[in-house]
């Protein structure tokens, strides 16, 4: 079984600074693998341990993005493919186009795994676009993936329900962070990762259709939320009775 896993070199959110206008400062910040992508890598590795085969990690970015591929290699991915392009200058649809061309260039894969969104811009647009371009089934927000021969059974984590679906191989899935707990590579694995192969492909080498439009983020800011502040006074017994009354009124408790 061959697994492709898509990863993104993103700003390290623990080092992220916010400017005066409440916008994140993305330029010049340290980068690493987008946190959620580790779940996609972990899932591919877990499936490989069950079914055998190969896991290839793909990324689009500058030479800096090699760091992210190395992180994936240290976790246990077999090899990496870097599509060299300036992330800042391409949109999500172009990214999906480059990824699909690179994936196709590496032969047939049985499953393409992505995370639900990147930890920097979190548009979540790439996985679905990728499936569309590759003309494969797309299963978004998966919290469980099981491969049974020629088909796969996946559980989709939706807001208020779980949807169980069956998909024919090959398919594209995005996974949610609850799907697994990503492993931490050991220091030895990190050192050995530099011996694993990374193939570099120039974006220009990949046959791409003319650019189509893709949503563009116009701005990003924190939304202030107003909370209700209710102070309950009286003895503990009285306060408890008032609390129950208040909770019932809010509809969070019913007798």
């Amino acid at each position: 079984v061959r697994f492709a896993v898509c990863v993104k070199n993103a700003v390290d959110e623990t080092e992220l600074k916010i400017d005066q206008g409440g916008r994140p400062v993305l330029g010049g910040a340290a980068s690493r693998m987008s946190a959620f992508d580790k779940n996609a890598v972990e899932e591919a590795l877990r499936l490989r341990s069950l079914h055998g085969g190969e896991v290839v990690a793909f990324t689009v970015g500058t030479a800096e993005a090699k760091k992210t591929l190395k992180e994936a290699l240290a976790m246990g991915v077999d090899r990496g493919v870097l599509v060299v392009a300036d992330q800042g200058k391409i949109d999500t649809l172009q990214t999906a186009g480059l990824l699909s061309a690179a994936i196709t260039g590496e032969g047939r894969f049985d499953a393409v795994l992505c995370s639900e969104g990147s930890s920097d811009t979190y548009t979540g647009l790439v996985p679905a676009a990728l499936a569309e371009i590759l003309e494969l089934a797309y299963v978004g927000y998966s919290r469980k993936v099981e491969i049974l021969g020629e088909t796969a059974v996946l559980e989709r984590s939706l807001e208020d329900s779980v949807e169980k679906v069956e998909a024919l191989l090959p398919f594209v899935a995005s996974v949610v962070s609850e799907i697994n707990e990503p492993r931490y590579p050991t220091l030895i694995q990190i050192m050995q990762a530099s011996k694993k192969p990374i193939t570099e492909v120039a974006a220009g080498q990949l046959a791409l259709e003319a650019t189509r439009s893709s949503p563009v983020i116009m701005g990003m800011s924190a939304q202030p939320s107003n909370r209700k502040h209710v102070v309950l006074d009286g003895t503990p017994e009285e306060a408890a009775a008032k609390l129950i009354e208040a909770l019932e009124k809010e509809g969070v408790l019913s007798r």
Partner: protein
Amino acid sequence: LTMPLFNSEHLSLLRSNYPEHEEYAEVLSALGGFMSERIFPMSEKFDSNSANMGASRKALLEQGVCQIPFPKEHGGLGLPYGVYVLALELAGSADAGIALSLAIHNTAAEGIFQFGSGEQKRKYLPDITSGRKLASFALTEPTSGSDAKSMSTRAKRTMDGYVLNGSKAYITNAGEADVYFVFAATEKGPSSFVVEKSNPGMSFGEDLPKLGMRGSRTSEVRFEDCRVPQDSLVGDEGMGFEYAKAMLNGSRIVMGSLCVGIARVAFDKAVAYAKQRRAFGAPISDFQLIRGKIADMKTGISAGRLLCMHAARLRESGAEYASAAAQAKVFSTEMSVDACDSAIQVFGGHGYTSGDVHRHWRDARLLTIGEGTSEVLRLLIASRELALAT
């Protein structure tokens, strides 16, 4: 407070010391990431003893932190000592008690590596460096600390080995460790032994209540007719004191670095608080007396880090480094106590009452005593300078 433990300052220090070795930064950045996510958030609980640090220590050992300085043939990573010293700084920031436990663990490994036989290295090093076995270092006695030569623990020669009698005091990892690097006097003088916990005749005192470093276990180690086989002797009889001095030189750099890590986390907390806490209509970071503290703390941390790295680089080059190691430890440990004290002052009443602030001072306070007191190390530094001056 959330923070990446491995930051741009560590990166530039590594790059200037080890150009062309970007992999050292990859290793320390990953290690820092692990400690930021898995160790640092638990640290307050280890201090209050509301959580046991054993599992976290094991997880950190399994990451390979103690493999860093040993050659690959002994299960190590074969990286320079300076990388290990920086790794222990990160550990000191994540949790000082775990860092102390790891440092002592590796001091024992160092003794086996430097002075043990090929068989002893094969038998113990891969297990110790990978964390399958925990190690301890037992030199100090109830009545001999700095004056280690006057030890009263005895190793009496028998037909097929030695019989140990006596006791060791204030031993880190005591009772938890599987392997002990023990000093005991034979007829030829202080000698060193590797003793396994499973040996009959070995027992441990109760966990001592300490000012700081509360996550780590400290107690007495007692030997009562403890029979050990001949091959537990490390090196030659009578050489124990020389071995101890050599082992302590390395671990003094590490203890200095660990204290730089403690100071750094206290500093980060103090800076964050100073920017947020307001008085007289302004954040207290606007006041010059607070700014002075911040500047002095930062300067001390940078100086301590550089002294530790300098001593590590001398060691790597094969040069004499005992005085440099002593200077790194005296300066960094005392700097750390001062910096943590300043952090308490910046926090004011909250600093005196919050364990998450004053524990850094309590942790750092051990290390102007352990692994060579500041007083003994100053004598070492001075006597060397006076000998050179004649």
